[in-house]
């Protein structure tokens, strides 16, 4: 096939009749279809990256909810009735929409907190801990090892709101910013009688996810072991669920059938995600349709070209050109066009991703500047299918002669 003179004669015979305007139209149809397909995969991937991605500061895609057993007239006398057994926790892990289950461990030992100065107060405290990966923001100071006096704690943002907007004005006390709260050192007296230990607690962060005061898991475990009632096993009365879509009715039914309670306010939020998913899948279907039409237009163009060159094609076969040779020649003309179109589509998609990435950055969201692997996978799959379809239509149309 290296003979240029021969190639140019074949080109004259087989492709000489093609209209370049129609070729461009066919290529444009193919390019639009491919670009839309890649864009819809890109949009889908970007959404799932924003919703469920691991590199998001705050993963928008999952809803955290604290689940406990309902306290009723019947079980209020027996505290163990509202505890979670291991079996129930395992069952929760496989419940619909549940991605992860974090056990909330609370202190089983007395804590007495005091604060000096103008804001002086003293109170009994409760602390809870959750696995680190359930924290919405992980402060760098968030660690504690036995023997350390300084204890980091995370406070529910609601506490600060109640203090600033309700308590401080009524008591004529100064309002506090997050930074000033972080500078306050609380003294925690842990244990009772002669077996006590003193810790200096600092607020290192605020959480929207948890409605209480959190200490590192290692601290609660240490305290429960050292100061708790001997022989008492740690029990779980509340769990933190990481759910994909709590608005899923199956999830609601599951909670109801087990008589679990939860804060259902954020169920509404997840409806937005459901809408996003519907929109992206609708875009995807539309894009597949357009890609199909684009491919069809291009293949029809090829078949039309071959049909127009039928006389020359028949004669070439009669003087000894093999169908495979002619197919190769035609594929050599059309496949680079297909691949060029696909490359152009990919370039457009990359540009779209770069633009999207910089746009969402101003909203405080993080997206990579280069399309993710599903987009590349879609590129490989769609161009392979295209190459196969085009080659098949060429050899099919030629062998029919």
């Amino acid at each position, binding site marked *: 096939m290296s*003979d240029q003179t*021969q190639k140019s*004669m*074949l080109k004259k*015979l087989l492709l000489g009749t093609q209209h370049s305007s129609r070729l461009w139209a066919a290529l444009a149809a193919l390019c639009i279809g491919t670009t839309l397909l890649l864009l819809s995969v890109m949009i889908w991937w970007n959404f799932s990256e924003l919703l469920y991605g691991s590199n998001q500061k705050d993963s928008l895609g999952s809803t955290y909810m604290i689940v406990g057993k309902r306290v009723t007239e019947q079980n209020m006398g027996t505290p163990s009735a509202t505890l979670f057994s291991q079996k129930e926790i395992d069952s929760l892990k496989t419940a619909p929409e549940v991605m992860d289950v974090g056990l909330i461990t609370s202190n089983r030992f007395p804590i007495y907190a005091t604060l000096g100065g103008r804001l002086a107060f003293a109170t009994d405290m409760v602390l809870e801990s959750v696995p680190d990966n359930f924290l919405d923001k992980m402060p760098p100071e968030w660690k504690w090892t036995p023997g350390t006096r300084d204890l980091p704690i995370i406070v529910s943002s609601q506490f600060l709101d109640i203090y600033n907007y309700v308590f401080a004005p009524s008591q004529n006390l100064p309002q506090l910013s997050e930074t000033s709260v972080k500078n306050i050192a609380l003294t925690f007296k842990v244990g009772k009688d002669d077996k006590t230990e003193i810790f200096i607690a600092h607020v290192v962060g605020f959480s929207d996810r948890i409605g209480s005061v959190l200490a590192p898991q290692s601290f609660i475990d240490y305290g429960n072991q050292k100061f708790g009632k001997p022989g008492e096993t740690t029990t779980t009365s509340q769990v933190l669920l990481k759910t994909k879509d709590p608005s899923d009715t199956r999830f609601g039914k599951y909670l109801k059938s087990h008589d679990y309670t939860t804060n259902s306010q954020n169920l509404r939020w997840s409806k937005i995600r459901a809408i996003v998913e519907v929109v992206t899948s609708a875009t995807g279907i539309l894009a597949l349709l357009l890609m199909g039409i684009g491919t069809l237009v291009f293949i029809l163009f090829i078949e039309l070209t071959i049909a127009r060159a039928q006389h020359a094609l028949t004669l070439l*076969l009669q003087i000894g050109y*093999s169908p495979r040779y002619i197919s190769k020649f035609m594929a050599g003309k059309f496949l680079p066009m297909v691949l060029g179109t696909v490359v152009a589509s990919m370039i457009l998609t990359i540009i779209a991703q770069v633009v999207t990435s910089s746009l969402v950055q101003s909203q405080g969201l993080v997206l990579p500047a280069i399309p993710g692997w599903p987009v590349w996978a879609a590129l490989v799959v769609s161009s392979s299918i295209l190459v196969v379809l085009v080659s098949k239509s060429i050899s099919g149309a030629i062998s029919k002669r």
Partner: protein
Amino acid sequence: MQLTLQGIIPVPLREKVNNYQSGIWKSNLTLNKGEFVFIQAPSGTGKTTLIHILYGLRKDYQGDIKWNESSLVTAGNEVLANLRTTNISVIFQDMRLFPELTAWENIDIKRRLTNTISENQALEWLDRLGLKDKKNATANTMSYGEQQRVAIIRSLLQPFDWLLMDEPFSHLDHVNIAKAIALISEVVKQNGAGLILADLDENNYFPYTKTLML
């Protein structure tokens, strides 16, 4: 390469061939390499049909044809393409040139496919048949006689064991027929090939070793 025909009956001529004795239709026949066969075929007896059947262009017949041991009935497109570039060549009655190509391009497109005859050789043949000044004329502007000479040259541009000819000189005068015969004889001899020439009337273009009535 041996040619074997076994009871060939073309479907369109089925009624007709039952009514007379043909030397080829319905017969079993073996032609050996190097034979010069003349097929005399009055109008309507299927002369062109026979050439096309032998060349593998049509398959609407009963019986079997074998080039050496391989049957033409079952031969695929790739096998036929191979046969048409290395074993069998043809001069069609209706020439079958590419009308949009020039005389030279019509020759060159075949020459570059098989790569057996040099460009100079092909040019010399063009000259021998008096087509030198028609080299760059497109086929659709050429007379039948000129087209027929181009078709003759084209058929010689490949290695072959058999040359099939269907009224090859119908548009040529005596002088040009003589030139064409000289050229064909020379190339056939070089190839050690046989030839099958089908025509309406008796002739002595070549020293035939066998004459068959269609």
